[in-house]
């Protein structure tokens, strides 16, 4: 999908006047930013944060951004919430944050995208560095207005022996893209890269990931699942590159989606690029509808069609939530999912 070699530099251009990518750009062909924005809106004014955010009560520390204004950098440890709040109408803002997990430290990042107002463009850039033996679980919950345009790009760099786990949960927006790049050094480092999208109305969500295995015996386990209804559109682009010399890499990618209406759409582009020897790599991709036999079985036991569909869809997507490590966030994710499927 020819992503930019320097993803943050590319992302920064989006709010600094560089030409907006359209479907003519390979990496953006399913998410045409130019079509929804046409031109860069004026800058968003300052605003006060509102509410406590979805992860209130779960974190030791909260970093808050409103319309792009927030801290520049933070060192992670324990449980940290990062709230990217947009309170804007017809304007644009860029948030930029550098995060570091020190050597041997385990940390949890609870990241939320919260929107008030409408038709804003939010551009978020994250630089995340894991030092040797560090562990980070990053959980992203994105709930933004149906008129919003939101692009978040994370550049994650792992050192040897580090472990990075990510679960992105999104309900989409007019156009929303959550893009993650992982530099994987192998050598005992481990990556889990998961996502769930639940889209209704005319919403659009794009989960794009690129994992670059640069050293020997690294592992990547990736599972993304989605459900789309009405005229919503889900996009999954996943690329795993195994560089020359990254022998013994074990990388698995799965993307599975349910299309719940005739006019909903899912576009998936899984890619494995392998230049090393003795690797174990696999990818699976399925897009389909609910199992009609299971649906009849549930209805024959008394569930109305909406209840049966919600139960089966929740079960389908729940497999991803089961992989989350932080108990409180997992319970919150379940409740979020149930609400989205009502």
């Amino acid at each position: 999908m020819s992503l930019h070699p320097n993803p943050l530099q590319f992302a920064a251009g989006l709010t600094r006047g560089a030409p907006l990518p359209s479907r003519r750009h390979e990496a953006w062909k399913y998410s045409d930013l130019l079509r929804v924005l046409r031109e860069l809106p004026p800058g968003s004014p300052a605003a006060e944060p509102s509410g406590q955010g979805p992860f209130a009560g779960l974190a030791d520390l909260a970093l808050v951004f409103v319309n792009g204004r927030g801290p520049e950098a933070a060192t992670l440890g324990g449980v940290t919430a990062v709230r990217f709040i947009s309170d804007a109408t017809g304007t644009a803002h860029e948030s930029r944050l550098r995060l570091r997990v020190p050597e041997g430290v385990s940390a949890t990042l609870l990241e939320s995208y919260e929107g008030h107002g409408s038709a804003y463009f939010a551009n978020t850039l994250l630089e995340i560095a894991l030092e040797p033996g560090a562990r980070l679980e990053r959980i992203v919950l994105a709930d933004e207005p149906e008129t919003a345009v939101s692009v978040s790009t994370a550049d994650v760099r792992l050192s040897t022996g580090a472990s990075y786990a990510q679960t992105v949960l999104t309900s989409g927006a007019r156009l929303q893209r959550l893009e993650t790049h992982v530099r994987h050094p192998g050598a005992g480092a481990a990556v889990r890269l998961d996502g769930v999208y639940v889209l209704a109305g005319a919403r659009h969500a794009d989960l794009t990931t690129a994992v670059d295995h640069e050293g020997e015996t690294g592992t990547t386990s990736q599972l993304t699942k989605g459900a789309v209804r009405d005229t919503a559109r889900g996009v999954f682009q996943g690329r795993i590159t195994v560089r020359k010399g990254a022998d013994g890499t074990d990388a698995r990618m799965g993307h599975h989606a349910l299309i719940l209406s005739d006019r909903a759409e899912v576009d998936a582009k899984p890619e494995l690029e392998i230049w090393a020897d003795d690797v174990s790599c696999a990818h699976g991709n399925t897009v389909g509808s609910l199992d009609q036999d299971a649906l009849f079985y549930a209805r024959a036991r008394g569930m109305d069609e909406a209840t049966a569909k919600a139960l089966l869809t929740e079960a389908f997507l729940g497999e991803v939530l089961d992989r989350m490590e932080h108990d409180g966030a997992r319970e919150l994710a379940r409740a979020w999912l149930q609400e989205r499927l009502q």
Partner: protein
Amino acid sequence: MLSIANLQVSVADTPILRGLSLDVPAGEVHAIMGPNGAGKSTLGYALAGRPGYEPTGGSATLDGEDLLELDPNERAAAGLFLSFQYPLEIPGVPALTFVRTALNAQRRAQGLPESSAPEFLKAARAAAGQLKIDFDMLKRPLNVGFSGGEKKRMEVLQMALLQPRFLILDETDSGLDIDALRVVADGVNALRSPDRSMLVITHYQRLLDYIVPDRVHVLAAGRIVASGGPELAHTLEAEGYDRIVGEAA
């Protein structure tokens, strides 16, 4: 209770039931026997409302209510329960969650308050004990990786918790060894009552030694061709279907 008159059902435009009539009064257990391909499973699916099983004529009513006009879930709320020959595996949905969701959907449809979690768990625990089901199994996804016998026991557990008025048991004995058959039959017999009726669909007489019917009907080529008391099942077992089906033809 259940009254079927001249029912005709097609599957993929092929007529399978060709004028089937049957009355099962309240409190009675009737057996439907018949050779393979007679339309036994079609009868169960058509009564439960499975998509693709198209009624083209006749009627089927439960206590006067026209079943064929109702959605599958409305039929369940009206008290109909079809025990599947091959119960579906439902990945990701714990058995308890599945049954409680079904029960509460029925209660909402009946205008009743939902079952509370403690109330439901107590009933589930009691039913599992009677059916010799390890309670922890009910926390696992329904039927996923279960043996044939375990799946059939889960069907009976659902009957016990949903308390339907009319039960259709489609080949409930298939895949069961004799011990499992006894447990399943005991569970079904415990549900016999003056205001509940059952239709037991089976190819073999064996099940009817354990769930003894009031009446036995022989289904062949989409119609009831003979009816009698429980002894008819033994006659069929001894002589095979050919003679009775042949005489009727």
